[in-house]
């Protein structure tokens, strides 16, 4: 039974992964990514990692891919990309050769150890112990041995939120943060420079980068 589940889920994963790489439309790539993430979640269930399977579906397929689709729709970059032309001659061949090498390296390493994993154990607990479900084992590990790492990841998430807000802010120039000015693109600003007299001297100095540079130098 596990063999059947594995074969079906592996086929979904591989088809989805190829879809991500080969789709010309970014929306199709994102939907193929959902297929791959879902297949990986099924493989997690097949390996008794039920909590991680649920988290995989909720966080990855639910949140991250929706974020991708949201950005695609927000920016309107959902038009097809021409994959026929190779911008750098010979780069694709080199990439495929490198990909085959990346695939072969772990497989050969695995074959050299007779398809068995070896290594030091963490002594955090066994996953085969039916009395301790996997979610309890993960929770115990996170809040005992890895508790400092867990706290640091919370700091990481807070920094990521602040960074994302700063990066996605529409007006990075400090003058625009103080005064509630309409948002302008660079071409608008350039045309405004020409018509600075009509705009008024205050607005021009606050708005054009060239004027700011001239003032500081």
């Amino acid at each position, binding site marked *: 039974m596990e*063999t059947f589940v*594995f074969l079906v889920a592996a086929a979904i*994963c*591989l088809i989805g*992964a190829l879809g*991500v*790489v080969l*789709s010309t439309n*970014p929306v199709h790539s*994102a939907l193929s*990514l959902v297929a*791959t993430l879902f297949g*990986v979640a099924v493989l*997690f269930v097949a*390996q*008794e*990692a039920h909590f*991680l399977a649920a*988290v995989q579906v909720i*966080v*990855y397929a639910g949140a991250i891919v929706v*974020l*991708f689709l949201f*950005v*695609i729709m*927000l*920016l*309107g*970059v959902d038009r097809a*990309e021409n994959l026929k032309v190779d*911008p750098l001659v010979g780069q*694709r061949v080199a*990439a*495929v050769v*490198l*990909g*085959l090498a990346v*695939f072969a390296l*772990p*497989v050969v390493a*695995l074959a050299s150890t007779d*398809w*068995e*994993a070896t*290594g030091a*154990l963490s002594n*955090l*607990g*066994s*996953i085969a112990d039916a009395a301790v479900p996997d979610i309890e*084992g*993960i929770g115990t590990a996170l809040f005992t041995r890895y508790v400092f*790492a867990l706290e640091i990841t919370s700091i*990481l*998430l807070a920094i*990521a939120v602040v*960074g*994302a807000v700063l*990066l*996605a802010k529409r007006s990075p120039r400090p003058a625009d943060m103080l005064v509630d000015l309409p948002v302008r693109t660079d071409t608008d600003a350039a045309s405004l420079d020409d018509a600075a007299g009509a705009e008024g001297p205050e607005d021009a100095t606050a708005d054009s980068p060239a004027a700011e540079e001239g003032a500081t130098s």
Partner: protein
Amino acid sequence: MLNVLAAGVEPSWYLVLSSALFAIGAVGLLIRRNPLVMFMCVELMLNAVTLSFVTFSRMLDDIGGQAVVVFVLVVAAAEVVVGLGIIVAILRRRPDATADDLALLKG
């Protein structure tokens, strides 16, 4: 094929699948020019790694591998948020920008 089905699934199959997914993601990262699709390929590679973590956790009968996957998830989420913020900031100014054009930080 029937022999394979009768023999049952070996944990190492998962590792082979994981390296295949990682390789596809790496090739995609190298050959695609759209920054969003390149980001999706990075997610693909991260997922391949989490799959191999879970498989090692099962092979060694140790919950530590599954605990690490939680951290990988958190770091992936943070990376996606910051990366998409950068992509939004760039593509808003230049909607046609591909990875080849993004040499703005070059000194």
